[in-house]
């Protein structure tokens, strides 16, 4: 491990001082849970960052080897607890893939609506906490205000506000209650102008841009090499979204939906003329771009939900029945990744023909996204660390499982 900064300028002009080893976390306001970053600093300049994880390890995979798939759904809730619906969906889909089961059309649209609502809720939190990391408190509460409305919708659907266990293997636990779709549409309508406010408060704020532009820049090659995914990957300009590029069983959900992957192409984001322009200080792959991708994805998700509502209303078949608890899984193994809000959430299931899987494995997106911090934070200032870690938007429940 090197103790000196790679950047030669820092060595050249640095006043001779002592290096200091600091533990940022596991209890620290900006580490989003129980992440511990070991910093080696020279004054305010950070020469090395080592993330230490595992403080929230709950043996979810071991538990998965002892429960039938539907019983493990609540444990997936607790992985990415800010986007529990998307976690449920990932596990449900991989079991369905193993069983070669195809949910009915109505159920697919329902899942799209729910998954995209979950994505909006998750990105709102990401936005709010990012503001918090940069020292502004108000956007956090604005984001939570909007998220509460989504949680109200979820509560009406499944009775829970955080750990839903709603999407399950074979279908969902219950159909939408009557009048829910109208409420959902009303929510989307009022969210449109609010997003513009967030752009004014954060995206285009001069201080915000100063704090995030050209900070923690990762090249597309680097992002791919480190296994980054989701907005972190797309923030570097990699045109990759599993909703379009994933496996058939997952992309089938989005068949016929019109959407563009939010990634910069030729200096432009899709439909970016409607949204604030990229500031000239920002470089592709920096914290600002990762934030911006999330903000555009909220709008994209709103669009997808509207399409989903239309299709759902037209569909005539059922939404799918949950699998019986005693149902035996076919022998074999399956791996499937879905596009969760924080990136590609992968589940791997190995079955020996029993109702309980032989092995349940979760590949979490934040796990891979966090690993790159050590590289990104090298040579930055202490104040940049919340700015970089916040832009990666990790959830420790998902990393430690």
């Amino acid at each position, binding site marked *: 491990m090197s103790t000196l900064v790679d950047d030669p300028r820092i060595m050249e002009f640095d006043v001779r001082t002592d290096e200091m080893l600091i533990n940022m976390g596991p209890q620290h306001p900006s580490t989003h849970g129980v992440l511990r970053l070991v910093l080696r600093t020279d004054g305010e300049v950070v020469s090395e960052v080592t993330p230490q994880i595992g403080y929230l390890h709950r043996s979810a995979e071991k538990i998965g080897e002892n429960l039938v798939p539907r019983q493990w759904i609540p444990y997936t809730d607790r992985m990415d607890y800010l986007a529990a619906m998307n976690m449920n969906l990932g596990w449900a889909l991989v079991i369905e893939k193993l069983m070669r089961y195809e949910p009915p059309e109505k159920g697919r649209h329902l899942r799209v609506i729910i998954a995209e609502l979950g994505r909006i809720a998750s990105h709102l939190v990401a936005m709010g906490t990012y503001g918090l990391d*940069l020292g502004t408190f108000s956007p956090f*509460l604005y984001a939570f*205000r909007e998220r509460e409305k989504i949680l109200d919708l979820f509560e009406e659907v499944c009775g829970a506000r955080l750990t839903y266990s709603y999407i399950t293997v074979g279908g969902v636990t219950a159909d939408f209650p009557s009048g829910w779709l109208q409420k959902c549409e009303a929510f989307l309508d009022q969210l449109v102008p609010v997003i513009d406010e967030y752009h004014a408060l954060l995206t285009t704020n001069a201080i915000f841009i100063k704090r995030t532009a050209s900070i923690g820049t990762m090249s597309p090659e680097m992002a791919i090499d480190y296994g980054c995914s989701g907005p972190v990957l797309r923030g570097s300009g990699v045109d990759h979204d599993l909703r379009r590029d994933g496996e058939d069983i997952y992309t089938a959900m989005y068949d016929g939906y019109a959407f563009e992957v939010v990634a910069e192409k030729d200096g432009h984001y899709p439909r970016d003329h409607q949204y604030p322009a990229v500031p000239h200080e920002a470089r592709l792959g920096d914290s600002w771009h990762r934030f911006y991708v999330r903000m555009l994805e909220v709008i994209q998700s709103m669009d997808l939900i509207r399409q989903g509502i239309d299709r759902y209303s037209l569909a005539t078949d059922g939404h799918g029945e949950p699998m019986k608890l005693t149902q035996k899984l076919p022998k074999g193994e399956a791996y499937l990744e879905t596009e969760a809000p924080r990136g590609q959430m992968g589940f791997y299931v190995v079955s020996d023909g029993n109702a309980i899987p032989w092995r349940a494995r979760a590949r979490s997106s934040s796990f891979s996204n966090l690993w790159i911090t050590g590289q990104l934070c090298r040579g930055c200032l202490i104040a940049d*660390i919340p700015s970089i870690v916040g832009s990666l938007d990790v959830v420790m429940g998902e990393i430690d499982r």
Partner: protein
Amino acid sequence: MALYLSNFMWSWLAYTIAALVHVVLILSLVAGGALLFIWLERKISGRIQDRLGPTRVGGKFGWLQTLADGLKLLTKEDLMPEGADRMLFRLAPYISFAASLAAYIAIPFAGGAYLLGAAPWVAQHVNVGVFFVLAVLGLEVFGTILAGYSSASKWSLFGAMREAAQVVSYEVPLGMCVVVPVLIAGSMDLSLIGDRQAGLFTNWLIFHDPFTFIAFWVYLTCATASVNRAPFDLAEAESELVAGFHTEYSGLRWSFFFMAEYGSMLSVSLLAVILFLGAWHGPLPIATWLGLTAEHGAIAMNLGKLLGLINLLLKAVVGVSVMIWVRWTLPRLRIDQVITTCLKYCTPIAAGMLLGATLWQYQFPSRSFFGLTEVPQAVYHLREGPQQAVQNSGSSPESREGTDVPEDEIATVNHPARRGGQVSASDTIPQESIARLR
């Protein structure tokens, strides 16, 4: 006050009582101010964030929330880290608070620059008041730095180092901005600067010329930096340094830092109001229209001063509210960006404004409101003293302004010999005693 009291009692007792009254008044202002501002901060932030803020303690508006919190802080365990430098750790909050409090000694709360026997309401009249307040406010950071250093915590140490770096950067432009009104008023005496802005709001120094107008905003920026408020709250940046210099503090000690912060917020606001925003004079000279001046007797004069006090405090509270508003809206800058802002942008701007204001004063002396109006006669009275005012009353101000202003105008009107009228005892001081002093 002491002089008045000494008519009735021993003078040593009179001075003691006078001093105690001042101390009690200032303490209650700072403590009461902190109570109010913490409540205000919660209410304003609440409203900004679509919340209600405190609603229960002490009636509908949660008036007593701060008091309840104060009680809670009192009962909290007083913790001290194992490796702390115990003496400095204990002292640091008091140093901060004492410095924040000491600035109030020289801040006048209502007008009258010893003119016509109308003494300003000030605990101790310091003729270099501006300088004194700045110097003492600068000491507040000493407490911060000692706290950071003695806490034996790395986060605290970082906070202290940031604070030190920040001090070096904001002090320079802050001082320059303060010099601008000093230059125009021709005095470092806060009560004189305040009374220079009597009359309509057009006489406020912020509107004196374009340069003072810009200097005010630079002052506001640097003053925010000097009291460690967002976006310059780097010493306690909670998302980076946990709580910065006061990470290890709890209970009452911590609340002293808090009081010091709100105390300095009020004092820099007061300074801004006195230097730029007309001090104790309202936008319209209502007190003069109502006849609440010295000419109509002591009661009228003191009523007028009370009005002035309310005026001053109201404006200062608005200033504090602006700081609160900014805090709950903007993200925090990075330390290098703070230093860049202060040294690379604010300092040259402030220097430019100082130069510009000098030249403006040279070109358009005795004119106010961007050169559109004249400084009214009352101000001449003030500047030149009663004797000269009587002489000048014969010739109209227009004829005075119409002619070419001699180059030495500034020097002349400010000349101590001509300003004798400001000094209450000037006509009684024998010339030889002055000569002896020199």
